[in-house]
């Protein structure tokens, strides 16, 4: 029986956050695919509060919420550290992780809406990207410095899912603003071997999200 199991669904960016963390630390795990349109009794048992993926099962005990899962993984398997050890630097890392979680939903609102809601989502997304460009990266290659860390993982959606959203909606957020640091980070992030080897297929993602957007807009 696998010691570590991951209940998740393709192509959720939150699922990939956990995959990247586990792979960076060399932890073997069993992937249990969830059908989000038909949630399993297992998922409802292990995440009764939110009923969402990903859920990490370690020795049968569930941990929910992707960034909480990542902090847990970091504590149990400290090799190839994903957080600074010095408390102040850790606090700064956690600040940007929280920022990523709080503000990234705007790009999904761009994807999910049209009309006024869509315009607001575009504005919010641009503001978020501007803040990251001006305040978060500095002159470093990655948020983690020379190597990626939990902050890079938290912003991973922007490197790979956002470009797909841009293609599906036709809204070019990254080009619209002036984000040279962010654009460079995206390029470098996707080149990191563990990331490169663990990304969903671009064409499949595009087709999946294109269908989803059509269905969402049709139901409005």
């Amino acid at each position, binding site marked *: 029986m696998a010691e570590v199991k991951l209940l998740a669904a393709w192509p959720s960016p939150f699922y990939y956050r956990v995959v990247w963390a586990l792979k960076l630390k060399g932890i073997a795990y069993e992937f249990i695919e969830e059908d989000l349109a038909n949630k399993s009794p297992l998922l409802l048992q292990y995440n009764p*509060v939110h009923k969402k993926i990903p859920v990490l099962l*370690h020795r049968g*005990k569930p*941990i*929910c*919420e992707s960034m*909480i*899962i990542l*902090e*847990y993984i970091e*504590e*149990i398997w400290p090799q190839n550290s994903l957080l600074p050890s010095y*408390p*102040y630097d*850790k*606090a700064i890392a*956690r*600040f940007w992780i*929280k*920022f990523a979680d709080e503000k990234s939903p705007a790009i999904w609102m761009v994807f999910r809406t049209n009309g006024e809601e869509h315009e607001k989502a575009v504005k919010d997304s641009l503001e978020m990207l501007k*803040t990251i460009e001006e*305040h978060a990266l500095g002159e470093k290659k990655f948020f983690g410095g020379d190597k990626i860390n939990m902050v890079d993982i938290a912003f991973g959606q922007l490197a790979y899912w956002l470009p797909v959203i841009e293609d599906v909606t036709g809204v070019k957020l990254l080009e619209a603003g002036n984000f040279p640091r962010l654009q460079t980070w995206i390029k470098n992030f996707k080149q990191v071997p563990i990331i490169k080897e663990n990304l969903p297929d671009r064409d499949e993602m595009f087709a999946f999200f294109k269908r989803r957007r059509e269905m969402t807009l049709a139901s409005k």
Partner: protein
Amino acid sequence: MADELVLLDFWPSPFGMRVRIALAEKGIKHEYREEDLRNKSALLLQMNPVHKKIPVLIHNGKPVCESLIQVQYIDEVWHDQAPLLPSDPYQRAIARFWADFVDKKIYELGRKIWTTKGEEQEAGKKEFIECLKLLEGELGDKPYFGGENLGYVDVVLVPFYSWFLAYEKCGNFSIEAECPKLIAWAKRCLQKESVSKSLPDQEKVYGFVLQLKKIFGIE
């Protein structure tokens, strides 16, 4: 060299209260500075340029923002006194989960209760009580969420108790009638000086909410 700590805060903020409690639990000397949120100080804007919000904890000139992050930072730096997070990683993940739950639900739902009316308010009240009941379930028979002593989740949640009277008056309902265990827990927390000195009086918060309603034209 002595540690220099400044807390930029605003008296009715439940987020600020979390930090006050954590500092008090560990007996950490600090300077409290009240911010006027309609006229934010240059220091606040400099120390929290991204969000421009309180609380901001300035430790030897370096700012830490976001209350959950501040409480964890305080717990890590002053780890010898009154630990707030459990030592076991799994228990820590559980504590973080419930703190995150409080952050995602309680503030927004509470806000819905005092800023809306009719159907929207009713929906807010219903979900608010459901969330409190889930928290009661997590508390179980323990005196505190942290077990025998005040812990991370207690510090994160108890500040909202100072807003309960405001929610009840604006929403015309009784939280104690629905969640007696949670009220008993809150009163137990208030017996601790760190909590009682950090939370404003419920009547004072209610007065503040009434003022806000007037300013924003909310009935």
